[in-house]
């Protein structure tokens, strides 16, 4: 791999040549990430070491928590169910991502969109969908062979559904790029398709595979929504934090659980660090983009597989949408739009949709900018090693922090009158900042992954062309990175449309968003209207995703250099 030849030696990045800038830029990112994520999270988690009056008590709260009955069971459930869900998710997502990036089967764009559906739907929809399909009145409850949905079965099923798009995103980003010359070399050496897959594809996607698995594990480990809806009486650590903080107002013990929930993220960070150390650039200046070959047998098999996965995703969501169209599930199945009609009578719900769109747009803009910058600093090791490593560590924290911890941490941090950012309290801007922080890890990893694959010869080309900062950005980096930028913006946008857990502590009458309105409807027992509103949110997110996909396609079409000429 030619990338290896430039992996060693000092990094030379064209427009970050001054020593000052090389330290200032990573410092700036560390400061922004600290203010938006780390300090607020710490503002809550530090309480693990304090008593209610704020006096330092060492590990007393941990000891108190360790003596709580039921902890061992909850910890064991969390560890094993997350592992099982991770195995299943990666097992499904890898062939799926492979099929949409490395084959010529039909419908690849469609399948990509369907894989993203779980991300586009407020979590209420899959929860309803699973209950309507596999619950006690479910049409397909026989498929569970007498097992109840409520318990480990439900947790694993719902977790796989929830984590699947994250895994597909990371894996397909990793599989999309590669160097066709290596495959040609392999073929010249008479390596068969299977051998080419095992010796070339699999090793070159190792980093993506490790990232995807650790992200999925951490996501499932820290998620509270799924076990609380379909977990039955199966206790997991993530629900403990809700019981302690919300049920008993015991912020100190809640903080203890929050600290414990960070453990898998620390492990994921170490794994990622080891993996990244051995990762070399996959695309050099001389690379030839992957041109998947037509292999009818493989393509047909994968098409069938993708069709099955798509049917499952659409089946679950479709069932919930169906639920929004009936009069009263499961006793009055007359179809109609009455739930939608009742919803649209309310001006407040319209304001909530406007707020959601503003939140999503703001999150996409700010998040993309920050994630690209931090991804670039980490991938190119700009600045002192400790600073770069620190930045990577900070970026891994948000994924491990439940929204509840982030939201309450925001209140503790920003609502402190001594904080210069106190004025943000109560604005939509604070919701934007919180949402960027909440979903930061995956886009950051997407950016790092993409930049690691583009080797530094491209940076050097910019330098050789004596491109100034502005023109290097515009003429070289922006075009090369445009598809990734669009993907990252899309990821932030759709997550911002559906997120709830952190925002319930931060919204005001003026900044109430649609996903919170859905929760209010559920609490008010307006199930049909809640399903209808969640469906509307999903429709808007699908619209955004379609824009994202066509934009991406238009960019790729316009950039002829991505295709092999002649």
């Amino acid at each position, binding site marked *: 791999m030619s990338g290896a030849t430039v992996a060693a030696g000092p990094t030379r990045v064209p427009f970050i040549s001054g020593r000052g800038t090389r330290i200032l830029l990573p410092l700036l990112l560390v400061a922004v990430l600290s203010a938006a994520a780390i300090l607020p999270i710490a503002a809550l988690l530090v309480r693990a070491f304090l008593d209610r009056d704020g006096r330092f008590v060492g590990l007393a709260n941990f000891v108190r928590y360790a003596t709580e009955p039921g902890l061992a069971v909850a910890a064991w459930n969390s560890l094993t169910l997350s592992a099982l869900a991770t195995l299943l998710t990666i097992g499904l997502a890898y062939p799926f991502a492979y099929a949409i990036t490395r084959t010529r089967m039909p419908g690849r764009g469609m399948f990509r969109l369907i894989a993203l559906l779980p991300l586009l739907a407020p979590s209420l929809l899959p929860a309803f969908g699973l209950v309507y399909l596999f619950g006690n009145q479910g049409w397909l409850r026989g498929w569970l062979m007498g097992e109840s949905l409520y318990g480990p079965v439900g947790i694993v099923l719902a977790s796989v559904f929830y984590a699947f798009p994250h895994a597909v995103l990371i894996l397909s980003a990793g599989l999309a790029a590669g160097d066709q010359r290596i495959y040609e070399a392999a073929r010249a050496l008479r390596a068969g398709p299977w051998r080419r897959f095992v010796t070339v594809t699999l090793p070159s996607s190792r980093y993506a595979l490790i990232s995807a698995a650790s992200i999925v594990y951490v996501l499932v480990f820290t998620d509270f929504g799924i076990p609380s809806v379909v977990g039955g009486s199966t206790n997991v650590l993530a629900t403990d934090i809700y019981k302690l903080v919300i049920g008993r107002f015991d912020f100190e013990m809640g903080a203890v659980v929050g600290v414990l929930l960070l453990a898998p993220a620390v492990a994921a960070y170490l794994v990622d660090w080891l993996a990244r150390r051995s990762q070399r650039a996959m695309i050099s200046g001389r690379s030839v983009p992957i041109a998947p070959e037509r292999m009818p047998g493989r393509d047909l098999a994968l098409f069938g597989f993708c069709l099955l996965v798509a049917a499952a995703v659409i089946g679950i969501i479709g069932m919930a949408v169906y639920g929004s169209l009936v009069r009263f599930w499961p006793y009055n199945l007359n179809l109609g739009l009455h739930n939608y009609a009742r919803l649209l009578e309310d001006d407040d719900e319209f304001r909530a949709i406007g707020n959601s769109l*503003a939140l999503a747009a703001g999150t996409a803009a700010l998040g993309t900018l920050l994630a690209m910058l931090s991804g670039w600093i980490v991938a190119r090791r700009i600045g002192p090693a400790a600073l770069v490593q620190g930045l990577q560590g900070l970026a891994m924290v948000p994924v491990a922090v439940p929204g509840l911890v982030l939201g309450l941490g925001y209140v503790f941090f920003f609502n402190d009158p001594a904080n210069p950012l106190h004025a943000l309290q109560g604005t939509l801007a604070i919701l934007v900042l919180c949402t960027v922080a909440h979903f930061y890890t995956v886009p950051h990893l997407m950016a790092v992954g993409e930049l690691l694959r583009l080797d530094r010869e491209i940076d050097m080309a910019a330098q050789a062309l004596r491109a100034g900062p502005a023109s290097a950005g515009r003429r070289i980096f922006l075009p090369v990175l445009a598809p990734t930028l669009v993907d990252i913006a899309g990821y932030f946008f759709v997550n911002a449309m559906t997120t709830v857990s952190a925002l319930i*502590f931060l919204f005001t009458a003026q900044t*109430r968003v649609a996903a919170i309105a859905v929760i209010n409807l559920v609490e008010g027992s307006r199930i049909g209207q809640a399903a209808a509103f969640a469906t509307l949110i999903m429709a808007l997110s699908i619209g955004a995703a379609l824009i994202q996909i066509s934009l991406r396609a238009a960019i790729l079409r316009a950039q002829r250099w991505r295709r092999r000429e002649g």
Partner: protein
Amino acid sequence: MFRTFIAAAVAGIASFAPIAADAQQRTLTVYSSLDEDQAKALIKGFEAKHPQVKVNAILGSTAPIIARVIAEAAAPQADIIMGNAVSALMAADARGLLLAYKPAQYDKVSPVMRDGRAEPVWLGIDAWASSICFNTVEAAKKNIPAPKSWADLANPVYKGHITMPSPLSSGTALLAVNGWLTIFGEKGGWDFMDKLHENVSKYGHSGSAPCRQAAAGETIIGISYATPGVKAINEGAPIQIILPSEGLGWEIEAAAIVKGAKNLADAKLMADWISSREAAEISAKYLPISAYDDIQVLPKNYPADEKAKLLKMDFAKLAASREAVMAEWQKRYGTKVPPKS
């Protein structure tokens, strides 16, 4: 409609900037866990009386609202909490976050709905009581009889068909548990819960969820409170609300001013409004027990005898034993997984 939408989007973008205090109109920030329609009706009534005050309402579930108030202690955002469980309000009061205030009509409110202390912190708005949501269609399919009493729920015929919230995360569950401890006594209460535990398929986090699960046929019996059952019946669910014969654990939803409220004068106006007979008449349309004893309105499909079945409860004692009850519950039922249905 479309215009509202555009206006909303513009307002959304505008609200990126900190909201400047409007010189013309005063604002009041209200946190509420009342039923959404009830909260909106009460606010509408207040704004009609005080057109110079614009109410900004933040509606949410009982516990998250109080958690938010506790977290915001450094610089309180709420001026007044208009409706939250008294037990949850006491958690905020214990941290010194609420302001004592005696609303204008305090003395006219029925005694049980008053704080009772010399410097009252809360004022009752309504009360809610634990009850059973029973799905008649699913019960008939499985040939399961309707329970008449709490004691009936210990019958093995209900094995796997009961859901209830966990008292560790739901005030509604605590109502039921406190009710059982009042009815059966300390030992008898826990003995009953041991037997009930054998029949429970799921302990959840939300007080209204068991009723919704019963309405959707996911369970036959949901231990909850009447309002979500009434709503489900109004939507067409085959739900019967059963008020067990031994009596019902219950609790008051009350209003309290937040200490450090930025708009204290208007918060007091709101507290005065809540203490008025007019406001109680609005609340009575949603829950039969309001702040004025003599207002007798029964919301549509609401069980008629709820008020008569309320247990005589020692709230001070129950508040003092809250932590101990939770710990005991966690020890008995938090560790082992209940039997599968």
